[in-house]
């Protein structure tokens, strides 16, 4: 992001720095502050709420263009949930819809120059992944009791191999929050760094006079192409996060393999 403005500092990591806006003092040695990350989370939530409230305020039977945008996002998530977790999964619709919209809006807001990308910090994606993970575990045990453990015991495995298979299944289950959070975080982080580095090339090259100016055309074109790719990635990662959440919730509802 921010192609032209970083002539003074072409530090590709600088955009991820967390700054305090308001500090509220300390609790147990941990500083409590309202940071730029928190500010952008508030902005994201406010934007989602405003988008959904304003676009659906007309309540037209025949939706206007804006209203149909809200309806499309509803149907997109609802279909995704029904396809991967069945109609029973629809009780998790508010959860999955909130996650999807939050990730999508956070990713897209991050594409605006100078804006902070909330999802480029692993602690935030990990917190969301752990929420999904714990929801699956708690709901799975609450609904199926110990039958939830069938998830780790595939049918038709000879008794000798069973301890090994169960260990592998448990490890595979434990790796879910890691892969879910790292995927989103790494995509956003790498994408924004790449953009910044290529945009930085434009500035460094143009310092070399006319030949540099001509050479700078290549990284500039790449920056434009990468920006388009990043918009695709922003949507795709929100989609992937949501659909994997649906699949994990499906395991909580139907724990047998």
């Amino acid at each position, binding site marked *: 992001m921010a192609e032209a403005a970083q002539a003074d500092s072409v530090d590709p990591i600088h955009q991820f720095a967390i700054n305090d806006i308001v500090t509220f003092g300390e609790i147990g040695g941990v500083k409590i502050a309202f940071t730029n990350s928190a500010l952008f989370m508030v902005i994201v939530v406010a934007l989602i709420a405003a988008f959904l409230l304003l676009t659906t305020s007309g309540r037209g039977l025949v939706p206007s263009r804006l209203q149909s945008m809200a309806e499309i996002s509803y149907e997109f998530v609802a279909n995704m949930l*029904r*396809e*991967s977790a*069945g109609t029973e999964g629809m009780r998790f619709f508010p959860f999955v819809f909130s996650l999807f919209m939050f990730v999508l809006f956070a990713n897209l807001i991050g594409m605006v120059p100078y804006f902070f990308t909330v999802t480029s910090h692993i602690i935030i994606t990990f917190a969301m992944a752990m929420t999904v993970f714990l929801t699956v575990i708690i709901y799975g045990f609450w609904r199926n009791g110990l039958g939830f453990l069938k998830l780790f015991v595939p049918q038709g495995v000879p008794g000798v191999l069973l301890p*090994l298979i169960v*260990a*592998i*299944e448990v*490890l*595979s289950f*434990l*790796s*879910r929050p*890691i*892969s879910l959070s*790292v*995927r989103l975080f*790494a*995509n956003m982080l790498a994408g924004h760094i790449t953009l910044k580095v290529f945009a930085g090339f434009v500035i460094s090259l143009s310092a070399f006079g006319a030949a540099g100016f001509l050479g700078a055309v290549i990284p500039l074109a790449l920056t434009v192409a990468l920006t388009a790719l990043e918009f*695709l990635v922003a949507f*795709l*990662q929100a*989609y*992937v996060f949501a659909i*994997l959440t649906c*699949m994990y919730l*499906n395991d909580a509802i*139907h724990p047998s*393999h």
Partner: protein
Amino acid sequence: MENDRRADGRVPPAAGSGPKADADLARRLDSLSRSLDAEQREHEAAAAPRRTDTRGFSLGIRLASEFVAAIVVGAAIGWGLDKLAGTTPWGMIGFLLLGFAAGVLNVMRSAEKMATIETKPDTGPDED
């Protein structure tokens, strides 16, 4: 066009009143809803594959991260066990191997899941 108009002109006097008109109306409503259903099904069939088709890019990233995550978790558990029980390096070796196996399992499973979603988009993996 002309045929339609002639048909329209002929229907009202015949179906103006009585149970005949109701039956005619019911028949026409029925055929309308049937054709609407058919159109909807056609529409869904056309829309569903496209939704999963464009995700090839995400597929690669997804499989790679599934694989790596399992190995990382295996290594972390092994390392932690070694720290606690002082069995260096056996816990780490064992759990790394288990993590590798779990990674392969993850990749196979998610590839299989994606394949089933792609081939039968309207049923979904309700029982697997």
